[in-house]
């Protein structure tokens, strides 16, 4: 199939627009999360999203709109558990993550099963994305990007050396809360692109690929953005042309980029 034919369909154009925005946000946030060794928060929050999607379907409300506040609260919960309960981040993520899955399964069993709908969220359905969802994704992605742009120095300083950031007058507690809240929003948006089960890949893979080849912090964010967005564009086209699952194809393209970067780094 020719690319121009592919672009003739409105639903493919919608998929590319929403996917690009979400991939851009995931790639940039991913760099901050990976460098702070907090990358599995995406996985934990994706599991919470499973529970909140189940709640949305049970209440017959749009799962994305129900999920955003629930996942944002859960992201703060993970942070508070790490700070207050003297837990390492991975244990806190494990608690919130299993709570999300258990909640989702309970909701599904109470409702007598809404398996087909729930499955579309588990594995993503970017080609079925609606106009309203494209609009929501674009607006929220731009908001997240603007926040990162205006707080770039605070985020960079806190990521590199939190103690020094504090004595520079940066409120690192607020910055940490903001980072997990933005991650929460992004995970919900990414759920439609690659599905709940593969959200982590969209956060981690572009970032770790960029870390292999970039030569500065700004450069890492730029390379990660190009890899993340490129993977969504290529993956969406290939999945459509070859009749494959879109989410899985996007993740595989991301992985190929990662392997290529690894080989390049070892070769030079």
């Amino acid at each position, binding site marked *: 199939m020719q690319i121009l034919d592919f672009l003739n369909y409105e639903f493919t154009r919608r998929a590319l627009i929403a996917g690009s925005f979400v991939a851009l946000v995931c790639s940039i946030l991913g760099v901050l999360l990976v*460098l702070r*060794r907090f990358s599995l928060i995406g996985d934990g929050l994706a599991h919470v999203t499973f529970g909140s999607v189940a709640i949305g379907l049970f209440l017959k409300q749009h799962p994305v709109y129900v999920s955003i506040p629930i996942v944002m609260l859960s992201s703060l919960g993970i942070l508070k558990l790490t700070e207050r309960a003297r837990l390492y981040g991975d244990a806190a993520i494990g608690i919130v993550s299993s709570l999300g899955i258990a909640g989702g399964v309970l909701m599904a069993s109470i409702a007598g099963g809404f398996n087909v709908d729930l499955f579309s969220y588990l594995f993503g359905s970017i080609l079925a994305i609606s106009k309203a969802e494209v609009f929501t994704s674009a607006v929220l992605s731009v908001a997240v990007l603007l926040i990162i742009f205006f707080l770039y*120095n*605070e985020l*960079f*300083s806190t990521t*590199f*050396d939190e*103690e*020094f*950031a*504090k*004595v*520079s*007058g*940066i409120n690192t507690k607020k910055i940490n809360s903001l980072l997990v809240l933005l991650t929460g929003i992004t995970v919900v948006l990414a759920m439609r692109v690659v599905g709940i089960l593969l959200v982590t890949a969209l956060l981690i893979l572009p970032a770790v690929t*960029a*870390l292999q080849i*970039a*030569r*500065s*912090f*700004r*450069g*890492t964010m730029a390379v990660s953005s190009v890899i993340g967005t490129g993977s969504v564009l290529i993956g969406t086209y290939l999945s459509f042309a070859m009749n494959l699952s879109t989410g899985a194809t996007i993740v595989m393209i991301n992985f190929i980029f990662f392997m290529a970067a690894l080989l390049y780094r070892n070769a030079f």
Partner: protein
Amino acid sequence: MKILSVEGLSFRYNSAEVLSDVSFSVNVGDYIGLVGPNGSGKTTLIKIIFGLIKPQKGSIFLFGANSWNFKDWYRVGYLPQRTLFNPYFPATVKEIVSLGLFSKKESEVINKSKETMIDKAMRLMDVLDIKNKLIGELSGGQQQRVLVARAIVNEPELLILDEPTTALDPEVRENFFHILREFNQDKNVTIILVTHDIGSIGKYASRLLYLDKKVIFYGSFEEFCLSENMTDYFGEFGQHLICHRHD
């Protein structure tokens, strides 16, 4: 004029006493060597000064303001004891040094030109040639010099360095002490340098503050060497070793 006052400071961690009724003051232009054995509370004291730890008792005044209300952090430069950063962190020397400018008032940075200030700090610490290298690609000594450049880039009035010379080889260490003395004498920067090496800092500091959970001694190196209290504390042989190391 006092730049820092510590009054009746006490800190306990669980049941262990770390600092007990510590009081001293630092004047503008002082070069203080904060010395003491391992576990004597030096780093805890510095962290309390910067508001990173809250003491159970006592007050700290920075530039006349209570440290809890102090906002002008651009006036203070800081080098932490051990900066534990990810060795694969993808930041260049220049990017890291520029982080020190964050606390500076925006108007002052614009007036002086951010680039000029960063270049000046890198040149002083001899890291200008490696400004585009990643921090993880540098040796321990080079990394330490980059972090010192980050501490001085905002041209602070008070510079507090916690064990800055541990990763430096002897030649670089001497050079480093010289640079600090120039800062102190030519630019009137007040310096507090934490070390456990009294002999080395004694040559450069205007005053020594010997801490061992409480203030044991506060005065010049010469006074330290003549102090009978210090003879009692270290023993005659111990005091002689410290004071005549460079003879």
